[in-house]
């Protein structure tokens, strides 16, 4: 009954505009996402992400802009469907019903990507997840370590390039075409030889980062979230 993540609870605690938008998004996702499996997976993800969205005014603005964009896109798209011009360069769609489905499902797919990619990594600070009692600190740690891992990876590759243990990026304008197979093979051999070292260095650095300092801060976060509740 008192599950904080239930749809009814989310809808009760949100103001009117986001409520309408959330209902619209959910209905679009349920009706126009074609694969039943992806519907089953998408619904809980959308519910969880709306729980995060409604806390931020900026994101409600993004959703508002998205819905205006959807309407404008339909206004432009409906003549486009019957004009016979190509909708996308990647695929030729000829049947009218397929063209309708493509145009209607496009904003849903766009929102899908935006929800997952932006909300979970860039726009939402991971600290917002702390309030989820048991999972919260672990989720914060996961997002933080993903960011740290990406930075660490780039730094390690630069270091290994300086040590001649990783191939330098090819400058396509300067090389001769005849030397491409040789460069490709050389790069492949060097990568194969040193990829395990690259992965191992990343793991080592992450564990070294976590065990003295990361753990102390993680414990502090745990205690803070306990004090709040």
């Amino acid at each position, binding site marked *: 009954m008192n599950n904080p993540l239930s749809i009814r609870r989310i809808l009760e605690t949100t103001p009117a505009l986001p409520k309408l938008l959330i209902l619209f998004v959910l209905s679009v996702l349920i009706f126009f996402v074609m694969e039943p499996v992806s519907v089953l997976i998408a619904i809980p993800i959308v519910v969880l992400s709306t729980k995060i969205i409604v806390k931020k005014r900026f994101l409600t603005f993004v959703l508002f802009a998205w819905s205006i964009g959807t309407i404008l896109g339909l206004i432009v798209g409906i003549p486009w469907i019957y004009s016979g011009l190509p909708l996308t360069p990647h695929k030729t769609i000829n049947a009218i019903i397929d063209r309708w489905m493509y145009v209607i499902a496009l904003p849903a797919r766009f929102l*899908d990507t935006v929800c*997952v990619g932006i909300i979970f990594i860039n726009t939402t600070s991971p600290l917002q997840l702390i309030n989820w009692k048991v999972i919260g600190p672990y989720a914060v740690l996961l997002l933080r370590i993903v960011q740290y891992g*990406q930075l660490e990876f780039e730094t390690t590759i630069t270091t290994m390039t300086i040590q001649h243990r990783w191939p330098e990026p090819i400058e396509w304008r300067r090389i001769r075409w005849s030397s491409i197979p040789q460069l490709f093979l050389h790069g492949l051999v060097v990568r194969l030889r040193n990829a395990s070292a690259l992965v191992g260095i990343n793991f080592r650095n992450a564990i070294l980062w976590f065990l003295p300092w990361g*753990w102390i801060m*993680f414990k502090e976060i745990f205690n803070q979230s306990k004090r709040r509740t």
Partner: protein
Amino acid sequence: MGMDHVQRDIQPIQKENIMKINFALIIVLAGITTALTMVVRIPIPATEGYLNLGDMAVVFCGLLIGSRWGLLAGAIGSATADLIGGFFIFIPITFFAKGLEAYISGTL
């Protein structure tokens, strides 16, 4: 006199914290697996998937912390990479397959 304050500050790890450390270490390894899967991404047009360093990271997870914990780390890491990358449909398959991979590499 010299090291007394240091010894006072460093407390022994309590029993209830050991499980927390284990879980947190799993999350750390899972996060690194996610990062390695996401950063190097070579798309394959035939399968519409992508090739990455994630498999190597999953095997490392199994070898580092054993089969059971490695299973969790590899599975969570790869599934998170799919979640962030937008490959929804593959999340359950990835979770199962990569977990099995880490488990096997841990038992070898």
